[in-house]
């Protein structure tokens, strides 16, 4: 029997097996941020084991609340910063260089096909867009990852989702993943890895692939994976050209991580996206999804464009194309948060920030902020936010607030309309 992508990666990294159903793997990278890492650091100190397995394989960023909003968040940043210095962790990103982890670390070239990566953050599943096996873990797994460079996983099954057809205008990667979560349900992929493939993925850029893999966890999946190809190579080439010399050698290495033709899938879903509509969520669970056109009676107080799901340059370009030359509804507060300094700079160069400002948006520095209700746009009780983030849980962006998840284009259209409104078709 052939192997799926995750089976190949785990086989290549296996260091131990604990019983029939748990495998311990060697980690190629451990990523850290200031919310979940300080407790691991403090515990290591308490145990007299303040060490790291390999400072070059550990990357750290202060991203969730930046700049610090109070003494407690300042202390979390300080614990991470001091630890990174103490252990010679060179790839540490503090304010000025920091951005949302799942946008920043790929942008820095830290993610490669075939890698195993953990982070104390559930959206670590994003990195599968590069053909890696990456998984969100808790602080204890993170602590052991930092100390030993290993992590235990239940054996993973694989779901394969083949996306065919052509995305209609106004319909994007976010609409695809929202509709797939609607099909799978919030628990439909627990202890599974999802391989996203087919012509729709092949034609999609890395930003779109990351949007899709980012939300695999919302169906319970451990990781979402796309097959590494020419698009992956274009993105990574600046970081790997010395290692491989020529592109064909790199592509050949990438191909070793493709699934075997006779790989065993727990489930195969084939979906034609040609008639997909702009989608939005309506409840407190990310699988509660319907076409945005059916929700136009929902007035919005705030529109938030950003996060590890949709804060990359492609997302900002699309939103700006909707907003260009127009003003958002007077009752709407618009907030855009470019995910990284590079995205911010590029948006500035392309005149995208100006379009947002002219439309009446506030542009914030790169940070998670409002996405998890920490800072930079927390909702008041009873308020409604049209958001490009990934979680509509009760209280997620502020106690008593309501979050509707959607694409950047639909969020921008909703900002103009003052209520949920599907992204328009551009051509007549």
């Amino acid at each position, binding site marked *: 029997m052939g192997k799926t992508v995750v089976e190949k990666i785990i086989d290549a990294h296996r260091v131990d097996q604990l019983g029939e*159903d748990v495998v311990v793997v060697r980690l190629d990278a451990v990523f850290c941020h200031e919310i*979940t890492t300080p407790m691991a650091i403090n515990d290591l100190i308490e145990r007299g084991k303040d060490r790291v397995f390999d400072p070059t394989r550990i990357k750290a960023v202060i991203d969730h609340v930046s700049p610090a909003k109070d003494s*407690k968040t300042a*202390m979390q940043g300080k614990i991470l910063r001091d630890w990174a210095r103490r252990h010679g962790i060179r790839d540490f990103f503090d304010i000025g260089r920091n951005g949302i982890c799942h946008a920043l670390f790929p942008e820095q070239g830290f993610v490669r096909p075939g890698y195993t990566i953990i982070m104390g*953050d*559930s959206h670590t599943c994003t990195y599968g867009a590069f053909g890696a096996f990456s998984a969100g*873990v*808790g602080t204890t797994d993170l602590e052991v990852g930092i100390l030993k460079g290993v992590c235990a996983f239940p054996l993973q099954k694989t779901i394969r989702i083949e996306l065919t057809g052509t995305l209609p205008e106004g319909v994007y990667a976010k609409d695809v993943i929202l509709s797939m979560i609607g099909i799978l349900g919030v628990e439909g992929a627990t202890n599974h890895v999802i391989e996203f493939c087919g012509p729709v993925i092949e034609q999609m850029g890395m930003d779109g692939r990351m949007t899709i893999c980012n939300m695999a966890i919302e169906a319970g999946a451990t990781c979402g994976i796309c097959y590494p190809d020419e698009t992956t190579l274009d993105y990574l080439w600046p970081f790997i050209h010395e290692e491989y010399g020529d592109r064909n050698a790199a592509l050949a290495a990438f191909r070793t991580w493709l699934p075997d033709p006779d790989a065993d899938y727990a489930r195969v879903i084939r979906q034609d996206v040609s008639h997909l509509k702009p989608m939005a969520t309506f409840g407190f669970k990310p699988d509660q999804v319907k076409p945005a056109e059916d929700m136009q009676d929902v007035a919005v107080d705030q529109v938030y464009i950003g996060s590890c799901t949709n804060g990359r340059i492609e997302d900002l370009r699309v939103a700006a194309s909707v907003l260009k030359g127009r003003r958002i509804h007077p009752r709407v507060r618009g907030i855009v948060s470019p995910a990284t300094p590079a995205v911010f700079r590029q948006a500035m160069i392309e005149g995208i920030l100006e379009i947002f400002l002219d439309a009446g948006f506030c542009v914030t520095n790169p940070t998670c902020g409002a996405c998890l*209700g*920490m800072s930079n746009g927390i909702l008041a009780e009873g308020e409604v936010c049209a958001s490009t983030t990934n979680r509509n849980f009760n209280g997620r962006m502020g106690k008593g607030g309501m979050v509707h998840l959607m694409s950047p284009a639909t969020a921008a259209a909703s900002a103009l309309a003052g209520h949920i409104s599907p992204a328009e078709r551009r051509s007549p």
Partner: protein
Amino acid sequence: MSNTFSGNILFLDRDDINTDEIIPAKYLTEITKAALKPHLLEDLLLDGFSPARDIPGKSVVVSRANFGCGSSREHAPWAFEVNGIRLIIAKSFARIFRQNMFNCGMMAVTLSGELIDDVFRRFGGRPASVVTDLDRSTFEFRSETDRWIVPFTLSEFEWKMIRAGGWVNFADATYA
């Protein structure tokens, strides 16, 4: 084998209880577990549930499907732990939450949908407790008028975590 996996039951009769509901993100700025104690289940959407009234004195949670979904925050198991709750019994768990529980030396045990239905029917809505026998791998559910012994299974990994007192102890002793 004596253990801390027994006591009065808090019934949470809902699917998909997520970790934002268990401990909201605004408390993730705390750097001690004890600080989480008053905020457990603060944002839980469940009719008639009052954290202040319903949590004190409870040591075990019984719930439904996909318990602990969402954010990877280990603050969720910790918030239970500092409230004296070290065992959660449910129809199913999200992967990260379940792993976090065992990594902390706590228990997240699944029972079939039918068994969970029966536990809710026979013991829910009244004072009830559970006695966990680790040697026999059984729960004994008790109320004033009812008793019921139900076997459970754990994987080898999960037993190792309970015996070692969690993943850090185990990994430190096992891997170079």
